[in-house]
Protein backbone atom coordinates (compact mmCIF):
# COMPACT_ATOMS: atom_id res chain seq x y z
CA UNK A 1 0.00 0.00 0.00
CA UNK A 2 1.28 3.48 -0.82
CA UNK A 3 1.42 6.36 1.61
CA UNK A 4 -1.98 7.67 0.53
CA UNK A 5 -3.56 4.27 1.24
CA UNK A 6 -3.88 3.27 -2.39
CA UNK A 7 -3.17 -0.35 -3.20
CA UNK A 8 -3.74 0.02 -6.93
CA UNK A 9 -2.75 3.17 -8.76
CA UNK A 10 -3.79 3.74 -12.34
CA UNK A 11 -2.27 6.92 -13.74
CA UNK A 12 -3.00 8.36 -17.17
CA UNK A 13 -3.63 4.92 -18.62
CA UNK A 14 -4.67 4.62 -22.24
CA UNK A 15 -4.90 1.71 -24.59
CA UNK A 16 -5.48 1.79 -28.29
CA UNK A 17 -5.77 -0.95 -30.90
CA UNK A 18 -4.80 0.61 -34.18
CA UNK A 19 -7.12 3.59 -34.57
CA UNK A 20 -9.56 2.37 -31.91
CA UNK A 21 -9.08 3.89 -28.47
CA UNK A 22 -10.38 1.41 -25.94
CA UNK A 23 -9.29 3.25 -22.80
CA UNK A 24 -8.50 6.93 -22.74
CA UNK A 25 -6.39 8.65 -20.09
CA UNK A 26 -7.91 6.99 -17.05
CA UNK A 27 -6.58 7.71 -13.56
CA UNK A 28 -7.78 6.47 -10.21
CA UNK A 29 -6.62 4.92 -6.97
CA UNK A 30 -8.11 1.87 -5.31
CA UNK A 31 -7.72 1.02 -1.67
CA UNK A 32 -8.94 -1.74 0.58
CA UNK A 33 -12.64 -2.55 0.36
CA UNK A 34 -14.83 -3.30 -2.59
CA UNK A 35 -14.67 -1.16 -5.70
CA UNK A 36 -17.18 -1.71 -8.43
CA UNK A 37 -16.18 -1.17 -12.03
CA UNK A 38 -19.18 -0.41 -14.17
CA UNK A 39 -19.87 0.55 -17.70
CA UNK A 40 -21.94 -0.39 -20.71
CA UNK A 41 -20.77 -3.11 -23.09
CA UNK A 42 -17.70 -2.03 -24.99
CA UNK A 43 -16.88 0.72 -22.49
CA UNK A 44 -13.37 -0.62 -21.88
CA UNK A 45 -13.88 -2.30 -18.49
CA UNK A 46 -12.30 -5.59 -19.44
CA UNK A 47 -9.41 -3.90 -21.22
CA UNK A 48 -8.84 -1.79 -18.12
CA UNK A 49 -8.95 -4.84 -15.85
CA UNK A 50 -6.53 -6.68 -18.11
CA UNK A 51 -4.11 -3.78 -17.90
CA UNK A 52 -4.52 -3.66 -14.13
CA UNK A 53 -3.58 -7.34 -13.93
CA UNK A 54 -0.67 -7.09 -16.36
CA UNK A 55 -2.31 -9.38 -18.92
CA UNK A 56 -2.35 -6.55 -21.42
CA UNK A 57 0.18 -3.82 -22.01
CA UNK A 58 -0.71 -0.14 -21.63
CA UNK A 59 -0.25 2.16 -24.59
CA UNK A 60 0.35 5.05 -22.22
CA UNK A 61 0.40 5.62 -18.48
CA UNK A 62 1.30 3.38 -15.59
CA UNK A 63 -0.38 0.78 -13.45
CA UNK A 64 1.14 -0.05 -10.11
CA UNK A 65 0.12 -2.31 -7.28
CA UNK A 66 1.67 -2.00 -3.83
CA UNK A 67 3.92 0.59 -5.42
CA UNK A 68 5.31 -1.86 -7.97
CA UNK A 69 4.62 -2.08 -11.71
CA UNK A 70 2.19 -4.87 -12.52
CA UNK A 71 3.48 -5.73 -15.96
CA UNK A 72 6.60 -7.92 -16.26
CA UNK A 73 6.50 -8.52 -12.50
CA UNK A 74 5.51 -12.14 -11.91
CA UNK A 75 6.38 -12.23 -8.18
CA UNK A 76 3.55 -9.72 -7.61
CA UNK A 77 1.03 -12.39 -8.60
CA UNK A 78 1.61 -14.06 -5.26
CA UNK A 79 -0.48 -11.24 -3.81
CA UNK A 80 -3.12 -11.01 -6.54
CA UNK A 81 -6.03 -13.22 -7.42
CA UNK A 82 -7.62 -12.69 -10.83
CA UNK A 83 -10.79 -14.15 -12.26
CA UNK A 84 -11.44 -13.22 -15.87
CA UNK A 85 -14.84 -13.18 -17.55
CA UNK A 86 -14.02 -16.16 -19.75
CA UNK A 87 -14.40 -19.76 -18.65
CA UNK A 88 -10.73 -20.55 -18.41
CA UNK A 89 -10.86 -24.10 -17.17
CA UNK A 90 -9.47 -27.39 -18.46
CA UNK A 91 -12.42 -29.66 -19.11
CA UNK A 92 -10.40 -32.83 -18.63
CA UNK A 93 -9.24 -31.81 -15.14
CA UNK A 94 -11.11 -32.57 -11.94
CA UNK A 95 -12.10 -29.57 -9.88
CA UNK A 96 -9.76 -30.36 -7.04
CA UNK A 97 -6.86 -30.99 -9.42
CA UNK A 98 -7.47 -27.61 -11.03
CA UNK A 99 -7.44 -25.75 -7.73
CA UNK A 100 -4.42 -27.71 -6.55
CA UNK A 101 -2.55 -26.88 -9.75
CA UNK A 102 -3.30 -23.18 -9.34
CA UNK A 103 -2.26 -23.35 -5.70
CA UNK A 104 1.02 -24.97 -6.63
CA UNK A 105 1.68 -22.43 -9.36
CA UNK A 106 1.02 -19.60 -6.91
CA UNK A 107 3.50 -20.97 -4.43
CA UNK A 108 1.16 -22.27 -1.77
CA UNK A 109 3.16 -24.55 0.47
CA UNK A 110 0.48 -26.14 2.64
CA UNK A 111 -1.38 -27.39 -0.41
CA UNK A 112 -4.11 -29.76 0.67
CA UNK A 113 -5.54 -27.67 3.54
CA UNK A 114 -5.50 -24.57 1.34
CA UNK A 115 -7.30 -26.44 -1.44
CA UNK A 116 -9.84 -27.81 1.05
CA UNK A 117 -10.51 -24.33 2.39
CA UNK A 118 -10.91 -22.79 -1.04
CA UNK A 119 -13.30 -25.51 -2.20
CA UNK A 120 -15.31 -25.24 1.03
CA UNK A 121 -15.60 -21.50 0.52
CA UNK A 122 -17.36 -22.05 -2.80
CA UNK A 123 -19.39 -24.99 -1.53
CA UNK A 124 -18.20 -27.50 -4.13
CA UNK A 125 -16.79 -30.22 -1.91
CA UNK A 126 -19.23 -32.77 -3.33
CA UNK A 127 -18.23 -32.14 -6.92
CA UNK A 128 -14.49 -31.65 -6.54
CA UNK A 129 -13.56 -35.11 -7.80
CA UNK A 130 -15.49 -34.78 -11.05
CA UNK A 131 -13.98 -33.51 -14.30
CA UNK A 132 -14.87 -29.88 -14.84
CA UNK A 133 -16.17 -30.67 -18.29
CA UNK A 134 -19.18 -32.22 -16.49
CA UNK A 135 -19.86 -29.12 -14.38
CA UNK A 136 -22.60 -26.63 -15.02
CA UNK A 137 -21.57 -23.11 -15.89
CA UNK A 138 -22.17 -21.89 -12.36
CA UNK A 139 -20.07 -24.71 -10.92
CA UNK A 140 -17.18 -23.92 -13.25
CA UNK A 141 -17.43 -20.30 -12.19
CA UNK A 142 -17.32 -21.25 -8.53
CA UNK A 143 -14.37 -23.58 -8.97
CA UNK A 144 -12.55 -20.80 -10.79
CA UNK A 145 -13.28 -18.59 -7.81
CA UNK A 146 -11.80 -21.26 -5.55
CA UNK A 147 -8.69 -21.22 -7.70
CA UNK A 148 -8.57 -17.45 -7.41
CA UNK A 149 -8.81 -17.54 -3.62
CA UNK A 150 -6.66 -20.58 -2.85
CA UNK A 151 -3.46 -18.60 -2.25
CA UNK A 152 -5.23 -16.07 -0.03
CA UNK A 153 -4.39 -13.02 -2.12
CA UNK A 154 -4.50 -9.49 -0.79
CA UNK A 155 -5.98 -8.15 -4.00
CA UNK A 156 -8.85 -9.71 -5.89
CA UNK A 157 -9.77 -8.63 -9.39
CA UNK A 158 -12.99 -10.22 -10.54
CA UNK A 159 -14.51 -9.73 -13.98
CA UNK A 160 -18.21 -10.66 -14.04
CA UNK A 161 -17.79 -13.20 -11.24
CA UNK A 162 -21.49 -13.87 -10.85
CA UNK A 163 -22.11 -15.04 -14.41
CA UNK A 164 -24.09 -18.23 -14.28
CA UNK A 165 -24.56 -18.13 -10.50
CA UNK A 166 -28.01 -18.95 -9.10
CA UNK A 167 -29.65 -16.70 -6.45
CA UNK A 168 -28.41 -18.79 -3.52
CA UNK A 169 -24.87 -18.72 -4.83
CA UNK A 170 -25.10 -14.97 -5.36
CA UNK A 171 -26.06 -14.46 -1.73
CA UNK A 172 -23.23 -16.73 -0.59
CA UNK A 173 -20.78 -14.98 -2.85
CA UNK A 174 -21.81 -11.53 -1.63
CA UNK A 175 -21.32 -12.61 1.97
CA UNK A 176 -17.91 -13.98 1.10
CA UNK A 177 -16.83 -10.76 -0.58
CA UNK A 178 -18.03 -8.67 2.33
CA UNK A 179 -16.08 -10.86 4.74
CA UNK A 180 -12.95 -10.52 2.64
CA UNK A 181 -13.38 -6.77 2.40
CA UNK A 182 -13.81 -6.50 6.15
CA UNK A 183 -10.59 -8.46 6.55
CA UNK A 184 -8.79 -5.71 4.65
CA UNK A 185 -8.63 -7.17 1.15
CA UNK A 186 -8.75 -4.95 -1.88
CA UNK A 187 -11.44 -6.15 -4.24
CA UNK A 188 -12.23 -4.83 -7.71
CA UNK A 189 -15.44 -6.18 -9.09
CA UNK A 190 -16.69 -5.64 -12.60
CA UNK A 191 -20.31 -6.41 -13.16
CA UNK A 192 -23.43 -5.57 -15.13
CA UNK A 193 -25.65 -6.33 -12.15
CA UNK A 194 -26.10 -2.84 -10.76
CA UNK A 195 -28.14 -3.84 -7.73
CA UNK A 196 -25.39 -6.10 -6.48
CA UNK A 197 -22.63 -3.59 -7.07
CA UNK A 198 -24.76 -1.01 -5.33
CA UNK A 199 -25.11 -3.37 -2.38
CA UNK A 200 -21.48 -4.44 -2.21
CA UNK A 201 -19.27 -1.64 -3.43
CA UNK A 202 -18.08 1.19 -1.24
CA UNK A 203 -16.73 2.94 -4.30
CA UNK A 204 -17.80 2.83 -7.89
CA UNK A 205 -15.82 3.56 -11.04
CA UNK A 206 -17.96 4.30 -14.06
CA UNK A 207 -16.34 3.81 -17.44
CA UNK A 208 -18.09 5.16 -20.51
CA UNK A 209 -16.55 5.09 -23.97
CA UNK A 210 -13.14 4.31 -22.52
CA UNK A 211 -13.14 7.30 -20.19
CA UNK A 212 -13.66 7.49 -16.48
CA UNK A 213 -17.06 9.15 -16.23
CA UNK A 214 -17.34 9.14 -12.45
CA UNK A 215 -15.78 7.68 -9.36
CA UNK A 216 -16.71 7.56 -5.70
CA UNK A 217 -19.78 6.57 -3.73
CA UNK A 218 -22.76 6.51 -6.04
CA UNK A 219 -24.80 8.92 -3.89
CA UNK A 220 -21.95 11.39 -3.98
CA UNK A 221 -21.75 10.94 -7.72
CA UNK A 222 -25.46 11.53 -7.98
CA UNK A 223 -25.19 14.69 -5.96
CA UNK A 224 -22.42 15.88 -8.25
CA UNK A 225 -24.66 15.53 -11.28
CA UNK A 226 -25.85 19.16 -11.00
CA UNK A 227 -27.30 19.31 -14.44
CA UNK A 228 -29.75 16.53 -13.60
CA UNK A 229 -32.60 17.39 -11.24
CA UNK A 230 -33.69 14.70 -8.81
CA UNK A 231 -37.05 13.13 -9.39
CA UNK A 232 -39.16 12.81 -6.27
CA UNK A 233 -42.49 11.03 -6.35
CA UNK A 234 -45.14 12.23 -3.93
CA UNK A 235 -48.39 10.49 -3.02
CA UNK A 236 -50.89 12.64 -1.18
CA UNK A 237 -54.62 13.13 -0.78
CA UNK A 238 -54.79 16.28 -2.98
CA UNK A 239 -52.18 15.94 -5.69
CA UNK A 240 -53.32 18.80 -7.94
CA UNK A 241 -53.53 21.25 -5.11
CA UNK A 242 -50.13 20.21 -3.82
CA UNK A 243 -48.68 20.43 -7.31
CA UNK A 244 -49.98 23.99 -7.68
CA UNK A 245 -48.39 24.92 -4.38
CA UNK A 246 -45.12 23.09 -4.84
CA UNK A 247 -44.37 24.65 -8.23
CA UNK A 248 -43.88 27.96 -6.49
CA UNK A 249 -41.02 26.69 -4.32
CA UNK A 250 -37.52 27.96 -5.15
CA UNK A 251 -36.08 24.48 -4.87
CA UNK A 252 -38.45 23.03 -7.48
CA UNK A 253 -37.66 23.06 -11.21
CA UNK A 254 -40.80 21.39 -12.50
CA UNK A 255 -43.80 19.34 -11.48
CA UNK A 256 -45.85 16.88 -13.44
CA UNK A 257 -48.71 14.62 -12.58
CA UNK A 258 -48.67 10.88 -13.00
CA UNK A 259 -51.74 9.13 -14.35
CA UNK A 260 -51.92 7.09 -11.15
CA UNK A 261 -52.49 10.19 -9.04
CA UNK A 262 -48.95 10.83 -7.84
CA UNK A 263 -46.98 13.97 -8.63
CA UNK A 264 -43.34 13.95 -9.74
CA UNK A 265 -41.28 16.87 -8.53
CA UNK A 266 -38.00 17.76 -10.25
CA UNK A 267 -35.57 19.48 -7.97
CA UNK A 268 -31.87 20.29 -8.02
CA UNK A 269 -31.91 21.09 -4.32
CA UNK A 270 -33.42 18.18 -2.46
CA UNK A 271 -32.05 19.36 0.88
CA UNK A 272 -34.22 22.47 0.74
CA UNK A 273 -37.11 20.48 -0.67
CA UNK A 274 -36.95 18.11 2.27
CA UNK A 275 -37.55 21.09 4.60
CA UNK A 276 -40.01 23.07 2.48
CA UNK A 277 -42.29 20.27 1.37
CA UNK A 278 -43.66 19.20 4.78
CA UNK A 279 -44.20 22.85 5.75
CA UNK A 280 -46.09 23.51 2.56
CA UNK A 281 -48.21 20.40 2.94
CA UNK A 282 -49.09 21.38 6.51
CA UNK A 283 -49.96 24.90 5.48
CA UNK A 284 -52.24 23.59 2.70
CA UNK A 285 -53.67 20.91 4.99
CA UNK A 286 -52.64 18.22 2.61
CA UNK A 287 -51.73 14.82 3.99
CA UNK A 288 -48.54 13.41 2.54
CA UNK A 289 -48.68 9.64 2.23
CA UNK A 290 -45.43 8.84 0.52
CA UNK A 291 -42.32 10.75 -0.60
CA UNK A 292 -39.71 8.70 -2.48
CA UNK A 293 -36.69 9.63 -4.58
CA UNK A 294 -36.89 7.88 -7.94
CA UNK A 295 -33.26 8.18 -9.00
CA UNK A 296 -31.43 7.62 -5.78
CA UNK A 297 -29.98 4.44 -7.20
CA UNK A 298 -26.86 3.33 -8.99
CA UNK A 299 -28.98 2.38 -11.96
CA UNK A 300 -30.18 5.91 -12.48
CA UNK A 301 -26.69 7.34 -12.00
CA UNK A 302 -25.41 4.81 -14.50
CA UNK A 303 -28.19 5.70 -16.91
CA UNK A 304 -27.55 9.46 -16.68
CA UNK A 305 -23.83 9.11 -17.18
CA UNK A 306 -24.09 6.60 -20.00
CA UNK A 307 -26.67 8.70 -21.81
CA UNK A 308 -24.63 11.79 -21.22
CA UNK A 309 -21.40 10.15 -22.26
CA UNK A 310 -22.86 8.21 -25.22
Amino acid at each position, binding site marked *: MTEDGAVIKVEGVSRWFGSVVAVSDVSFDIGPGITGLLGPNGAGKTTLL*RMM*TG*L*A*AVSAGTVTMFGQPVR*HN*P*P*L*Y*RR*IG*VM*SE*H*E*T*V*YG*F*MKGREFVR*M*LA*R*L*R*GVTDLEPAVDRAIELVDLADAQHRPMGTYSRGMRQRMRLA*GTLVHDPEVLILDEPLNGADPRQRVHFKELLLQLALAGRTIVLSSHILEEVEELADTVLLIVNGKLAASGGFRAIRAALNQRPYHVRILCDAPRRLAAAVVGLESVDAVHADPDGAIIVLSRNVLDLQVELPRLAKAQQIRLRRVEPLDDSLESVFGYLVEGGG
Partner: protein
Amino acid sequence: MGAVYFLTLRQLGSRPRLLVLAMLSAIPVFMVLMMLRGNTAPSVSSFENFILAGVLTGSIMPLMVLAITAPAFANELEDRTLANLTLAPIARSRIVVPKLLAAVTVSAPFVAVSAFLTGEFAYLGDLRATLAVTGGAIIGVALYAVVFLFFGLLSTQAIGLGLLYIVIWEGFLAGFVSGVRLLSIRYYATALMHGLDPRRFAGEDQVGFGMALGVTVVVFGGFLYLAIRRLRRMDVP
Protein backbone atom coordinates in the same frame (compact mmCIF):
# COMPACT_ATOMS: atom_id res chain seq x y z
CA MET B 1 7.70 -25.97 -13.48
CA GLY B 2 6.45 -29.44 -12.66
CA ALA B 3 2.85 -28.25 -12.61
CA VAL B 4 3.16 -26.77 -16.12
CA TYR B 5 5.02 -29.82 -17.39
CA PHE B 6 2.44 -32.31 -16.17
CA LEU B 7 -0.44 -30.13 -17.29
CA THR B 8 1.02 -29.99 -20.80
CA LEU B 9 1.65 -33.74 -20.82
CA ARG B 10 -2.04 -34.28 -20.09
CA GLN B 11 -3.07 -31.77 -22.72
CA LEU B 12 -0.89 -33.25 -25.45
CA GLY B 13 -0.76 -36.91 -24.57
CA SER B 14 -4.31 -38.09 -25.20
CA ARG B 15 -4.80 -41.68 -26.32
CA PRO B 16 -5.99 -40.95 -29.90
CA ARG B 17 -3.06 -38.63 -30.43
CA LEU B 18 -0.56 -41.18 -29.17
CA LEU B 19 -2.13 -43.78 -31.44
CA VAL B 20 -1.70 -41.54 -34.45
CA LEU B 21 1.92 -40.87 -33.47
CA ALA B 22 2.54 -44.60 -33.18
CA MET B 23 1.06 -45.23 -36.62
CA LEU B 24 3.08 -42.46 -38.21
CA SER B 25 6.30 -43.59 -36.59
CA ALA B 26 5.74 -47.12 -37.92
CA ILE B 27 5.72 -45.94 -41.54
CA PRO B 28 9.50 -45.58 -42.11
CA VAL B 29 10.11 -48.92 -40.37
CA PHE B 30 7.54 -50.58 -42.56
CA MET B 31 9.00 -48.99 -45.66
CA VAL B 32 12.55 -50.11 -44.93
CA LEU B 33 11.33 -53.64 -44.25
CA MET B 34 9.56 -53.65 -47.62
CA MET B 35 12.69 -52.33 -49.30
CA LEU B 36 14.84 -55.04 -47.76
CA ARG B 37 12.33 -57.67 -48.76
CA GLY B 38 12.76 -56.77 -52.43
CA ASN B 39 14.94 -58.86 -54.68
CA THR B 40 17.23 -55.97 -55.41
CA ALA B 41 18.13 -54.24 -52.18
CA PRO B 42 18.39 -50.45 -52.56
CA SER B 43 21.71 -48.76 -52.26
CA VAL B 44 22.55 -47.24 -48.90
CA SER B 45 22.51 -43.76 -50.41
CA SER B 46 19.04 -44.19 -51.92
CA PHE B 47 17.79 -45.49 -48.54
CA GLU B 48 19.39 -42.56 -46.75
CA ASN B 49 18.03 -40.01 -49.22
CA PHE B 50 14.56 -41.43 -49.54
CA ILE B 51 13.69 -42.96 -46.18
CA LEU B 52 15.83 -41.12 -43.67
CA ALA B 53 16.18 -37.68 -45.20
CA GLY B 54 12.94 -37.63 -47.20
CA VAL B 55 10.39 -39.57 -45.19
CA LEU B 56 11.63 -39.58 -41.62
CA THR B 57 13.32 -36.23 -41.09
CA GLY B 58 11.62 -34.42 -43.99
CA SER B 59 7.97 -35.44 -43.54
CA ILE B 60 7.01 -37.63 -40.64
CA MET B 61 9.16 -36.17 -37.91
CA PRO B 62 8.26 -32.52 -38.54
CA LEU B 63 4.56 -33.34 -38.93
CA MET B 64 4.52 -35.31 -35.69
CA VAL B 65 6.36 -32.59 -33.83
CA LEU B 66 4.13 -29.89 -35.33
CA ALA B 67 0.97 -31.74 -34.35
CA ILE B 68 2.18 -32.02 -30.76
CA THR B 69 4.14 -28.83 -30.17
CA ALA B 70 2.22 -26.04 -31.92
CA PRO B 71 -0.95 -26.74 -29.89
CA ALA B 72 1.05 -26.54 -26.64
CA PHE B 73 0.47 -22.80 -26.64
CA ALA B 74 -1.90 -22.36 -29.57
CA ASN B 75 -4.67 -24.36 -27.87
CA GLU B 76 -4.22 -22.43 -24.64
CA LEU B 77 -4.52 -19.19 -26.56
CA GLU B 78 -7.59 -20.40 -28.40
CA ASP B 79 -9.25 -21.66 -25.18
CA ARG B 80 -8.10 -18.61 -23.21
CA THR B 81 -6.59 -20.79 -20.49
CA LEU B 82 -3.06 -19.38 -20.79
CA ALA B 83 -3.85 -16.75 -18.17
CA ASN B 84 -4.01 -19.56 -15.58
CA LEU B 85 -0.26 -19.91 -16.12
CA THR B 86 0.79 -16.33 -16.78
CA LEU B 87 -0.99 -15.07 -13.65
CA ALA B 88 1.34 -17.24 -11.58
CA PRO B 89 4.34 -15.70 -9.78
CA ILE B 90 6.82 -17.58 -11.93
CA ALA B 91 9.22 -16.38 -14.62
CA ARG B 92 7.96 -16.78 -18.18
CA SER B 93 10.82 -19.14 -18.89
CA ARG B 94 9.34 -21.48 -16.30
CA ILE B 95 6.24 -21.66 -18.46
CA VAL B 96 7.94 -21.99 -21.85
CA VAL B 97 10.61 -24.52 -20.90
CA PRO B 98 8.28 -27.10 -19.32
CA LYS B 99 5.87 -26.73 -22.26
CA LEU B 100 8.76 -27.48 -24.61
CA LEU B 101 9.98 -30.35 -22.49
CA ALA B 102 6.52 -31.87 -22.37
CA ALA B 103 6.11 -31.61 -26.14
CA VAL B 104 9.48 -33.25 -26.67
CA THR B 105 8.63 -35.92 -24.06
CA VAL B 106 5.52 -36.86 -26.04
CA SER B 107 6.97 -36.79 -29.55
CA ALA B 108 10.63 -37.77 -29.12
CA PRO B 109 10.14 -41.37 -27.98
CA PHE B 110 8.09 -42.19 -31.07
CA VAL B 111 10.63 -40.57 -33.38
CA ALA B 112 13.52 -42.18 -31.51
CA VAL B 113 12.04 -45.66 -31.70
CA SER B 114 11.16 -45.18 -35.37
CA ALA B 115 14.66 -43.92 -36.18
CA PHE B 116 16.31 -46.68 -34.14
CA LEU B 117 14.34 -49.48 -35.76
CA THR B 118 14.68 -47.98 -39.23
CA GLY B 119 18.44 -47.63 -38.78
CA GLU B 120 18.75 -51.05 -37.17
CA PHE B 121 17.02 -52.80 -40.06
CA ALA B 122 18.57 -50.71 -42.80
CA TYR B 123 22.12 -50.93 -41.50
CA LEU B 124 21.72 -54.59 -40.62
CA GLY B 125 22.48 -54.24 -36.92
CA ASP B 126 25.31 -51.74 -37.16
CA LEU B 127 24.85 -50.14 -33.75
CA ARG B 128 26.95 -47.07 -34.35
CA ALA B 129 25.01 -46.19 -37.50
CA THR B 130 21.73 -46.87 -35.75
CA LEU B 131 22.62 -44.68 -32.81
CA ALA B 132 23.82 -41.94 -35.16
CA VAL B 133 20.45 -41.96 -36.90
CA THR B 134 18.60 -41.97 -33.56
CA GLY B 135 20.72 -39.20 -32.09
CA GLY B 136 20.33 -37.00 -35.16
CA ALA B 137 16.59 -37.60 -35.15
CA ILE B 138 16.20 -36.67 -31.47
CA ILE B 139 18.12 -33.46 -32.00
CA GLY B 140 15.92 -32.78 -35.03
CA VAL B 141 12.86 -33.24 -32.80
CA ALA B 142 14.21 -30.70 -30.32
CA LEU B 143 14.89 -28.18 -33.07
CA TYR B 144 11.52 -28.58 -34.73
CA ALA B 145 9.83 -28.45 -31.33
CA VAL B 146 11.34 -25.14 -30.30
CA VAL B 147 10.55 -23.56 -33.66
CA PHE B 148 6.93 -24.75 -33.65
CA LEU B 149 6.50 -23.79 -30.02
CA PHE B 150 7.44 -20.25 -30.99
CA PHE B 151 4.99 -20.37 -33.92
CA GLY B 152 2.29 -21.43 -31.45
CA LEU B 153 2.90 -18.27 -29.43
CA LEU B 154 3.08 -16.10 -32.49
CA SER B 155 -0.26 -16.91 -34.00
CA THR B 156 -3.35 -19.07 -33.74
CA GLN B 157 -2.48 -19.92 -37.34
CA ALA B 158 0.62 -21.70 -36.05
CA ILE B 159 -0.28 -24.92 -37.77
CA GLY B 160 -0.63 -23.16 -41.11
CA LEU B 161 2.75 -21.51 -40.68
CA GLY B 162 4.30 -24.79 -39.62
CA LEU B 163 2.84 -26.68 -42.57
CA LEU B 164 4.09 -24.04 -44.98
CA TYR B 165 7.51 -24.35 -43.43
CA ILE B 166 7.53 -28.14 -43.67
CA VAL B 167 6.11 -28.54 -47.15
CA ILE B 168 7.54 -25.56 -48.94
CA TRP B 169 10.73 -24.70 -47.10
CA GLU B 170 11.92 -28.11 -45.96
CA GLY B 171 10.18 -30.26 -48.52
CA PHE B 172 10.56 -28.23 -51.67
CA LEU B 173 13.02 -25.35 -51.48
CA ALA B 174 15.64 -27.14 -49.39
CA GLY B 175 15.71 -29.91 -51.95
CA PHE B 176 16.37 -27.58 -54.87
CA VAL B 177 18.16 -24.53 -53.56
CA SER B 178 21.44 -25.36 -51.86
CA GLY B 179 21.53 -22.07 -49.97
CA VAL B 180 18.28 -22.96 -48.25
CA ARG B 181 19.88 -26.09 -46.83
CA LEU B 182 21.95 -23.86 -44.59
CA LEU B 183 18.66 -22.90 -42.95
CA SER B 184 17.00 -26.30 -42.95
CA ILE B 185 16.47 -28.34 -39.81
CA ARG B 186 16.18 -31.48 -41.93
CA TYR B 187 19.65 -30.97 -43.34
CA TYR B 188 21.09 -30.20 -39.93
CA ALA B 189 19.61 -33.41 -38.56
CA THR B 190 21.16 -35.42 -41.36
CA ALA B 191 24.45 -33.54 -41.03
CA LEU B 192 24.49 -34.50 -37.35
CA MET B 193 23.78 -38.13 -38.25
CA HIS B 194 26.74 -37.97 -40.62
CA GLY B 195 28.88 -36.35 -37.96
CA LEU B 196 28.05 -39.04 -35.43
CA ASP B 197 28.95 -41.74 -37.95
CA PRO B 198 31.08 -40.34 -40.79
CA ARG B 199 30.67 -43.53 -42.84
CA ARG B 200 27.01 -42.61 -43.37
CA PHE B 201 25.42 -39.78 -45.41
CA ALA B 202 28.82 -39.15 -46.93
CA GLY B 203 28.67 -36.37 -49.47
CA GLU B 204 24.96 -35.77 -49.03
CA ASP B 205 24.94 -32.93 -46.57
CA GLN B 206 26.08 -29.45 -47.37
CA VAL B 207 26.82 -28.59 -43.78
CA GLY B 208 29.75 -29.86 -41.73
CA PHE B 209 29.26 -31.53 -38.37
CA GLY B 210 30.86 -28.74 -36.40
CA MET B 211 28.78 -26.12 -38.09
CA ALA B 212 25.64 -28.24 -37.71
CA LEU B 213 26.29 -28.56 -34.00
CA GLY B 214 26.96 -24.87 -33.58
CA VAL B 215 23.91 -23.85 -35.57
CA THR B 216 21.78 -26.35 -33.62
CA VAL B 217 22.75 -24.67 -30.38
CA VAL B 218 22.19 -21.19 -31.83
CA VAL B 219 18.81 -22.07 -33.39
CA PHE B 220 17.60 -23.87 -30.30
CA GLY B 221 18.73 -21.13 -27.95
CA GLY B 222 17.54 -18.39 -30.29
CA PHE B 223 14.02 -19.68 -30.73
CA LEU B 224 13.74 -20.50 -27.04
CA TYR B 225 14.73 -16.93 -26.23
CA LEU B 226 12.22 -15.64 -28.81
CA ALA B 227 9.45 -17.76 -27.32
CA ILE B 228 10.14 -16.54 -23.78
CA ARG B 229 10.35 -12.94 -24.99
CA ARG B 230 7.11 -13.31 -26.92
CA LEU B 231 5.28 -14.67 -23.87
CA ARG B 232 6.62 -11.85 -21.76
CA ARG B 233 5.51 -9.14 -24.17
CA MET B 234 2.29 -10.41 -25.63
CA ASP B 235 -1.22 -9.60 -24.43
CA VAL B 236 -2.55 -12.81 -22.92
CA PRO B 237 -6.22 -13.39 -23.78
